[in-house]
């Protein structure tokens, strides 16, 4: 009898948990059974990676990033969006590595069904990855290197943006934004203009920038052209004059220009992107900050992938085999006071598999073959006496998981 009671209690407990599984809102959301109409929305994405350096036979494992998205709808016309990012899992006092940063925090004002305005910290439409960087939307464990080193994604600044679509031309979108400019004192040889971003922290808004993009969805193609042009000296006139830099909102300008095409249809995906960074006053920046800034950088890549499961049946699952070629030169054109650095003239071939058992989850495996120019001895100030010679060709094998919900 006692045993029966225990069995009955256990049965009720199991029944209760089954009901809970069926009825909770979260589970229903996951199963895609109900629409999400809550005023406050919580979501996120992240990626974790193991990478083996073939040449040096060492490996590292890292939580590359975990992002928490919080959004709130105040009314039909006004919403809030934010993304808080933790890179490298841990930020401990005094230790190197790790970063907690706001990736986005902006208000969105709907003007009408075809037009809206954003104000705050946001990622302008430049290239593909800057806006679309969820790990479930690109192949390979690493984001394309051209869109990391030439276009410094994820590139966010404070400003105001206008986004709309042209009803007269179905699929045609436009965007324009005014944001704070860059800081040329932060440019570094090897990471381009990345160190000159403010990313929302105490930005010097004396230097300004404008960006714009045209994005066109036509048939199964997505075609985009985008541009950025802005100043990189947020100093007073006296300070700028003393450093012989061009003063003004758009003084000592930086231009970033990009075009890309994507094609998706029946499991086949193709994408290509070309971009350049133009810094006509690089000579002045080098004279002021001695950071070996180039006059021009150039990068391009092309990728083809195919969901091999489509060979067998129509499915939502995805097993994409892909290959990508990237070519970038961060000293494509140097001023007379610049020094060539062959190691930042780089080519990559990346091949691998992206597996998605369900939407929102990826398991990735890839191999990166990297080839660069040679080291310029003039740039090696304190050579390490027992250091290994620079390897112009390197290989990396990566395994990783990613998610987005």
């Amino acid at each position, binding site marked *: 009898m006692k045993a029966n009671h225990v069995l009955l209690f256990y049965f009720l407990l199991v029944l209760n948990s089954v009901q809970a599984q069926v009825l909770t809102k979260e589970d229903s959301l996951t199963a*895609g059974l109900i*629409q*999400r109409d809550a005023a406050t*929305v919580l*979501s996120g*994405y992240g990626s974790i990676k193991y990478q083996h350096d073939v040449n040096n036979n060492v490996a590292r494992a890292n939580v590359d990033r975990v992002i928490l*998205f919080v*959004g709130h*709808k105040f009314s*039909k016309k006004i*919403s809030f*969006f934010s993304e808080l990012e933790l890179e490298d899992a841990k930020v401990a006092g005094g230790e190197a590595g790790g970063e907690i940063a706001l990736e986005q925090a902006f208000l969105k004002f*709907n003007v009408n*069904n*075809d037009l*809206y305005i954003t104000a705050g910290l946001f990622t302008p439409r430049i290239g*593909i990855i800057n*806006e*679309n960087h*969820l790990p*479930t*939307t690109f192949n390979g464990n690493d984001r394309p290197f051209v869109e990391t080193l030439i276009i410094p994604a994820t590139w966010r600044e404070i400003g105001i943006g206008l*986004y709309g*679509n042209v*009803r*007269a*031309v*179905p*699929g*045609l*979108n436009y*965007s324009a934004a005014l944001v704070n400019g860059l800081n040329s004192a932060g440019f570094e040889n090897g990471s381009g203009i990345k160190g000159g971003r403010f990313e929302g922290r105490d930005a010097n808004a004396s230097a300004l920038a404008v960006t714009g993009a045209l*994005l*066109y*969805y*036509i*048939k*199964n193609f*997505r*075609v985009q052209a985008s541009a950025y042009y802005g100043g990189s000296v947020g100093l007073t006139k006296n300070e700028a004059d003393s450093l012989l830099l061009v003063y003004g909102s758009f003084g000592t300008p930086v231009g970033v220009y990009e075009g890309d*095409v994507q094609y*998706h249809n029946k499991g086949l995906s193709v994408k290509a992107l070309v971009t350049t960074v133009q810094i006509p006053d690089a000579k002045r920046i080098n004279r002021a900050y001695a950071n070996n800034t180039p006059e021009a950088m150039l990068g391009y890549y092309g990728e083809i992938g195919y969901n091999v499961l489509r060979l067998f049946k129509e499915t*939502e699952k995805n097993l994409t085999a892909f290959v990508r070629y990237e070519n970038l030169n961060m000293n494509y054109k140097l001023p007379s006071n610049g020094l060539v650095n062959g190691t930042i003239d780089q080519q990559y071939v990346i091949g691998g598999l992206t597996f998605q058992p369900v*939407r*929102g989850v990826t398991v990735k495996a890839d191999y990166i073959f990297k080839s660069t120019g040679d080291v310029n001895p003039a740039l090696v100030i304190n050579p390490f006496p027992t250091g290994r010679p620079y390897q112009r060709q390197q290989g990396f094998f990566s395994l990783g998981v990613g998610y*987005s*919900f």
Partner: protein
Amino acid sequence: MCLGGLALGWLTTQLAACSSLPIVKAVNDKGMINVPVSSFTEKNNLVIVRNGELEYDILLVKFGNTYTALQMKCTHQDNPLVVNSTGLFCSVHGSGFDLNGNVTKEPALRPLKKYAIQLNESSILISL
């Protein structure tokens, strides 16, 4: 440069071939929106339905003699969608949907909201 010129030429040709989708401004009558069947033409199987009370437009798709009404709201982060002859797209994060509302490209995970439809001789009634 030659490739760029070719691409520009192709794009110009495609743009010239485009015609805007008809937008029907409909009235919400007790939770029902009435769209005349005559809004569709032989060449055009897509109609955008707009109503001032609705936060997002509705895409009405004609498949033969049947119709589907889709909310033009991305299920990823609620951005408005744009439409062309092959599907609906989010210009912000790149999600894609086919003309049945199914996800064709992430980051969206869920299909688009579909509205119930009733048909009579001359009208399509969308139930909100």
